[in-house]
């Protein structure tokens, strides 16, 4: 059986599954329930200086797929609305009761050195394994000069990170906001400030829906709404890209990554690890299904690693990084053609109409004498785009097959059609 323990920023955890700083980690009762369910660690809900914030109702909005499936939710909740001392005493109590589990203290403060340092010291004294700087909250707190208001300014990212590093002697995680142009810039700033790791992504700024009766965004607070932080399965592709952006760069070498963003199951977890994450943080999956979902995250990841022969997380961590390249490094001579398996095709026609209307008119069909229909790919028209395979409701009915064209790999900079090509 694979060893699921992981080490990030020098902190060793029994498994890579931590709960992110959010409502599920707001109180001792929640955190203890999470540890009982098997979570390796938590990032306690963000702490600020007293007096505690006051929250509004309602707080969450949802973006659904059909059938009430949840693609993503957003929230307009602020940081912990309980007194700092209450949180710190609970952290101490949980640390004692669960010595093998990790607790990271998340914090935020206005741009003021003393405020950051004093708060970081108080949290560290409660016995946390590390401090996470919440520089990403995109709603509410940013209007008070905190959260993403800091995270969107690289100088502030560097400065706050340095303040915390100077104040405490435990690992420092800087949590990044995705609501910027290039995630690499604040990641480099965090590194310059001395961060041991970056946590990303924080939530994405969003309005999940508009109530067409009240003509107000949701969640709606007495007829009005505001933008909130979007999370869940829908943000995973954004998070994967941002993690890949950092993990492949020389300028961030040595900066570890605690990956966050739409991790719903073990497969998502493995993908983030493959892109270089040393640890993982989960929130929405637990909010939708409860802490028990960690069972299969652990079981599934372990089974995957056993099947692949990976004995530890480190065995496959970052293995996909080298395959994330610039577009200019892609092989222009690689050619794929779609193939429809006539035995499993149920003749719904979705591939045809998708290709006919919106792509390359590469799927034809005939009416057969028995009343059925036969769909076939016109190889000469097929550009191998995958759209037919994406819309096909039958798993593995449409395959994308490389053409053995015998051509050597060629990139765009070398391509004969490129007017700016580099001539050797």
């Amino acid at each position: 059986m694979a060893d699921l323990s992981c080490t990030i920023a020098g902190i060793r955890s029994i498994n890579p599954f931590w709960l992110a700083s959010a409502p599920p980690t707001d109180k001792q009762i929640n955190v203890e329930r999470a540890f009982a369910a098997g979570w390796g660690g938590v990032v306690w809900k963000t702490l600020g200086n007293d007096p505690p914030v006051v929250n509004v109702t309602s707080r969450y909005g949802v973006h659904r797929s059909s059938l009430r499936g949840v693609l993503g939710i957003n929230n307009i909740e602020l940081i912990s609305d309980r007194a700092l001392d209450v949180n710190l005493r609970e952290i101490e109590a949980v640390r004692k009761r669960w010595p093998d589990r990790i607790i990271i203290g998340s914090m935020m403060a206005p741009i003021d050195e003393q405020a950051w340092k004093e708060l970081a010291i108080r949290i560290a004294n409660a016995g946390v394994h590390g401090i996470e700087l919440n520089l990403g909250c995109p709603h509410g707190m940013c209007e008070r000069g905190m959260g993403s208001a800091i995270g969107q300014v690289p100088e502030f990212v560097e400065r706050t990170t340095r303040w915390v590093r100077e104040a405490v002697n435990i690992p420092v995680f800087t949590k990044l906001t995705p609501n910027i142009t290039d995630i690499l810039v604040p990641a480099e700033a965090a590194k310059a400030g001395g961060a041991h790791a970056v946590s990303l992504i924080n939530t994405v700024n969003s309005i999940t829906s508009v109530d067409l009766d009240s003509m107000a965004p949701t969640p709606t607070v007495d007829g009005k709404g505001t933008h909130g932080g979007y999370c869940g399965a829908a943000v995973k592709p954004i998070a994967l890209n941002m993690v890949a952006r950092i993990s492949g760069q020389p300028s961030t070498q040595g900066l570890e990554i605690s990956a966050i963003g739409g991790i719903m199951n073990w497969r998502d977890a493995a993908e983030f690890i493959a892109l270089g994450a040393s640890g993982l943080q989960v929130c929405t999956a637990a909010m939708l299904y409860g802490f028990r979902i960690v069972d299969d995250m652990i079981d599934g990841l372990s089974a995957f690693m056993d099947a692949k022969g990976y004995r530890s997380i480190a065995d496959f961590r970052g293995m996909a990084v080298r395959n994330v390249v610039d577009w200019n490094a892609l092989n222009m001579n690689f050619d794929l053609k779609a193939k429809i398996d006539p035995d499993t095709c149920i003749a719904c026609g979705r591939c045809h109409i998708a290709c006919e209307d919106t792509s390359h008119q590469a799927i034809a069909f005939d009416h057969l004498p028995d009343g059925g229909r036969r769909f076939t790919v016109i190889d000469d028209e097929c550009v191998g785009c995958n759209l037919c395979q994406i819309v096909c409701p039958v798993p593995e009915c449409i395959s994308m097959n490389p053409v053995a064209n015998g051509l050597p790999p060629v990139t765009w900079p070398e391509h004969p059609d490129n007017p700016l090509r580099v001539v050797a």
Partner: protein
Amino acid sequence: MAEQLHEAGNAMRPSTTQIADNFADLHPPLGAAKADVEANRCLYCYDAPCVRACPTGIDIPRFIHQIRTGNLDGSARTILSANILGGTCARACPTEVLCEQACVLNAGEAAPIMIGALQRHAVDHRLATGGAHPFTRAADSGKRVAVVGAGPAGLAFAHRAALLGHAVVVFDAKPKPGGLNEYGLAAYKMTDDFAQREVAFVLGIGGITVRHGHALGAQLQLAQLRADFDAVFLAVGLGASNALGVPGEDLPGVRNAIDFIEQLRQAPDKSQLHIGNDVVVIGGGNTAIDAAVQARRLGARRVTLAYRRGDAQMGATAWEQGLARRNGVIVELWAMPKAIAGANHVESVSFERTALRDGKLVGSGETFGVVADTVLKAVGQHLLADDLAALERAHGKIAVDAQLRTSLDGVYAGGDCIASGLDLTVQAVEDGKRAAISVDAWLRGKAQE
């Protein structure tokens, strides 16, 4: 489950409550959540096989997609624009051999979409909501069109002709409109007063007058209709039940299955209806199944459905045959009625075993008897000849061409009185719709001459 038969244990008649349960909706309507789940299973096929399998060509993927997006009125409009009696067809269509049989999901590992149930969901919503009729009539054409028969074909014709701007008068022999929708469907396939509510909805487009108590050959003459109207549409159905042609057929206790079904549909309290203890139904179509199952649900102790061929030759669909068996109907295949016996009332029916030899049905000589106090005949119907002598016939029915034109100029026909393929409500609706489009083209063509 409405399909479960409530029955008294000791040969007592079922209670009024049990009878009411037995005749409740065979397929209860989908709730909103279930409809949502079902609509979301639909793949939204392109050039969908289900559409081609629907005689009225309803754009099924579109109406199901509209359920999915919460556009129920739009969904109903999609259905009703192709089939104004979509509510009846949602209940009465043998979808298992039409749209649902064509569903591509049958080819995979999933059950087909419940298209009929979803159609009912949308149309029932529209009818329950009320409001303005979803379609608007074209400008008055100044033409008057007569329809004989207020059944599915006649109503579909009347609606489409009115939509196209013509003034329509519908004549019907019965006191209520609806034809077989009102009188001929099994009670559990069309519960409460849906048939009448649907007729009221169809007529809501305006421009249609219905006159009851007018039978062709009695109060109405075809020649007079041709003189009084610009065009005539005959949707007279099949008025007469076929005879068995065996001795004893006239004994009391022997009746036509369609009369029994009509009586059941019209009875305000079905528990007051008399049904014998030992019922024999003769025939292999859906009418035979409807009669046999309803006899069981009314409390008959033993119901035997006898058919002279095998189940593969039955007109009733496999689902209908299964319904009969699940309701405890004894199905005797390869059994040809030879005689009905009894002193003053039917007491038994004797049958001869049959077989197919070189494609021909032959008697085996082996006979058997079934005790019976009621015999229901369901061996088909034929065209009542009254006042239709001037029309050419084909296969015993009124001959029509592809435009539903009869041999008489300006006279069109559709529904069960023509041979257009399927003896189904949905086919009748399509006939009526197409005939109205033909009449409209003909009248407008004439006006330009």
